[in-house]
């Protein structure tokens, strides 16, 4: 496995393969996620993004922020579009027309992953294509104006699940995309956060060293949709991790491991409070929602810990 240094003093000497001049909002988490992931990879990368914020802001008109080969074809098919590229790579390698080593990475939003892109993603995972699929999860369809997605957290007010007087925001839970991916029995699945950059980059580095399909779900703060502050992408993702809203773990060859355990598990309200999309949860009449949110998180966290303990004990 590649073990080139992930120390910042070494990373600063690397070319960042995403150029400035991209049109993401100031302080966008997606840019940070892509930057960290690319820094963690040494090989040439061929990338693909579905329609969404990252795509429309990095490749527009005659201008591209990508310094690597990159393709966008539509919204629901990033995994299979890149699998097509990867298959052509194998075909041309077999026929002696390409010799260079390279790695294939999808950078897709949660809508393009959890929802409309799930079928093609599942097919790619099942067929075992050699690529890494990174979902930058900002928990809504941001590019089209913050509509709810299958990744939108319980309680969040979005433009299609607004907190009104009759319905207090999104009442359904998030899909557990990491478990869905793990159920494909692929060699590597993980969840990461830009607040824990070393953990994130180690996961990406490990993923690209493994052949076959890999999936990493990465929290990607969007202060526009989350209605928080432009400077809080890192602070808020740290709160997501330390409240266990966003547990950091990996599943390697079926074996689950928590890669970070918060020293002190904070109440989820600490993560929700700075975000306007959850403001209504702090009204007295919605106290039950806050309690529900906490219960869900406690249950997921307990389940993850139990799984890890069970696997560690040899089961």
């Amino acid at each position: 496995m590649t073990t080139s240094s992930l120390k910042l003093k070494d990373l600063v000497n690397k070319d960042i393969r995403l150029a400035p001049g991209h049109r993401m909002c100031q302080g966008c988490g997606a840019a940070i996620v892509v930057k960290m992931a690319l820094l963690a990879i040494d090989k040439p990368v061929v990338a693909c993004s579905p329609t969404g914020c990252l795509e429309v802001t990095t490749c527009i008109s005659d201008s591209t922020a990508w310094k690597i080969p990159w393709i966008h074809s539509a919204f629901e098919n990033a995994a299979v579009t890149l699998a097509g590229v990867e298959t052509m790579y194998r075909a041309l390698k077999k026929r002696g027309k390409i010799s260079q080593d390279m790695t294939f990475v999808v950078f897709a939003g949660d809508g393009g992953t959890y929802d409309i892109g799930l079928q093609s993603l599942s097919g790619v995972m099942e067929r075992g294509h050699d690529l890494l699929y990174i979902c930058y999860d900002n928990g809504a369809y941001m590019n089209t104006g913050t509509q709810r997605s299958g990744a939108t957290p319980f309680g969040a007010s979005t433009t299609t699940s607004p907190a009104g007087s009759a319905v207090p925001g999104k009442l359904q839970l998030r899909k557990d995309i990491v478990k869905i991916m793990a159920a494909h029995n692929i060699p590597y699945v993980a969840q990461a956060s830009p607040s824990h950059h070393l953990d994130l980059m180690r996961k990406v580095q490990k993923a690209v060293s493994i052949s076959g399909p890999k999936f990493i779900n990465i929290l990607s703060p969007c202060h526009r949709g989350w209605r928080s502050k432009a400077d809080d992408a890192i602070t808020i993702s740290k709160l997501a991790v330390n409240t266990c809203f966003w547990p950091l773990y990996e599943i390697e060859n079926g074996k689950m491991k928590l890669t970070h355990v918060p020293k002190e598990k904070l109440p989820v309200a600490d993560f929700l409070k700075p975000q306007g999309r959850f403001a209504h949860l702090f009204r007295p009449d919605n106290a039950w929602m806050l309690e529900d949110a906490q219960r869900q998180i406690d249950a997921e966290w307990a389940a993850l810990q139990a799984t890890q303990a069970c696997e560690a004990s040899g089961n």
Partner: protein
Amino acid sequence: MKTRIITKSTCKPVISEPGNSAVYKTGAWRSLKPVFEAAHCSSCLLCWLYCPDMSVIVHDGKMEGFDLDYCKGCGICALECPGKKGEKAITMVKEDIL
């Protein structure tokens, strides 16, 4: 990079100048500006890592300031800067609007 004239021979939505977005100066979007105080810098390089716009300039492992051509003024670098002895090395100030 010029906006190309779309003809029979150029009508393919493919861009062959990697990273040419750099001609687009997003610094113009900024209303707040980061200011660097080298004396308080511990060279942790977190600001370089976190900046979504590749606008933190580092030479020989040392933070040296900002590329204001692209810095959108989000303030992440300032918020996350650990600085030295309780003093941050980055602060955000209002951009002068002439």
